[in-house]
């Protein structure tokens, strides 16, 4: 249990694409630093730095086993922020799907007043 639940540090942590990729990987199961470093063209120390940021934000936990110290996702602190984002996304996705149809219609039938006359 930690009192550290700072969403601003969660967001600072999420703002980096490498860290988001690390989280995406960990969402599929725990992994060691070596495994995490593999897909990236950056050094293990650089990965370790990213992991520290994620750990400080409470987004991941690291095992105690000396050598490998596997990392895993801590879901709870992130769930709130992601839950909100999902709802926000759903709102805009629903609206944008309608906007797609509207734009299609506007392009198909440009007989809508070409001058900027007022509609009756």
């Amino acid at each position, binding site marked *: 249990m930690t009192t550290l639940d*700072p*969403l*601003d540090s969660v*967001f*600072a942590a*999420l*703002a980096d*694409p490498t860290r*988001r*990729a690390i*989280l*995406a990987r960990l*969402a*599929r199961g725990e992994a060691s630093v070596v495994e995490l470093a593999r897909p990236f063209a950056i050094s293990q120390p650089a990965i370790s730095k990213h992991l520290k940021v994620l750990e400080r934000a409470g987004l991941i936990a690291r095992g105690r086993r000396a050598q490998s110290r596997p990392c895993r*996702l801590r*879901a*709870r602190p*992130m*769930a*709130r*922020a*992601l*839950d*909100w*984002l*999902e*709802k*926000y*996304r*759903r*709102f*805009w*996705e*629903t*609206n*944008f799907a*309608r*906007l*797609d*149809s*509207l*734009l*299609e219609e*506007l*392009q198909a039938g440009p007989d809508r007043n070409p001058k900027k006359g007022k*509609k009756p």
Partner: protein
Amino acid sequence: MNTGPLKITPKGDRELVITREFAAPRKLVFDAYTKPELIRRWLTGLDGWTFDVCEVDLRVGGKYRWVWKRVSDGFLMGMGGVYREISPPVRLVATEKFDQPWYPGEAICTLDLAEKNGRTTLTQTMTYESPEALKAVLDSPMESGLSAGMDRLDKLVQSLA
């Protein structure tokens, strides 16, 4: 429809950025965001809600006001703000405040439209007053609760990436 998927990405500690591609020139997208008769056609919210008020005074310093109503119980959700920059068909900046605010201060919503080969990439940036305001936004109570299973979490993290 081969429009790109919607992306939401945090930027810094007080901004959220939405990007989405549309298969239409940006003039039409700009119109759809600024003409009330067109706004009414798409910004109608989630299923089960109606879009009751859509007022737009499109000039710098002019106000807009939108109100949605939940059909099941008549609950009203209203918001509005003031236009700060109107540069058709490229950019639209307005303040945004909800009637029942759950975060301090106003947010600023910036719409940027880039066009290439008749297609438009929309970038919508929400800038909150402070990191605390963004935190309040993200902390707001959720109908769905905090029930994110690992699958869902995986999907969400992927979609952020």
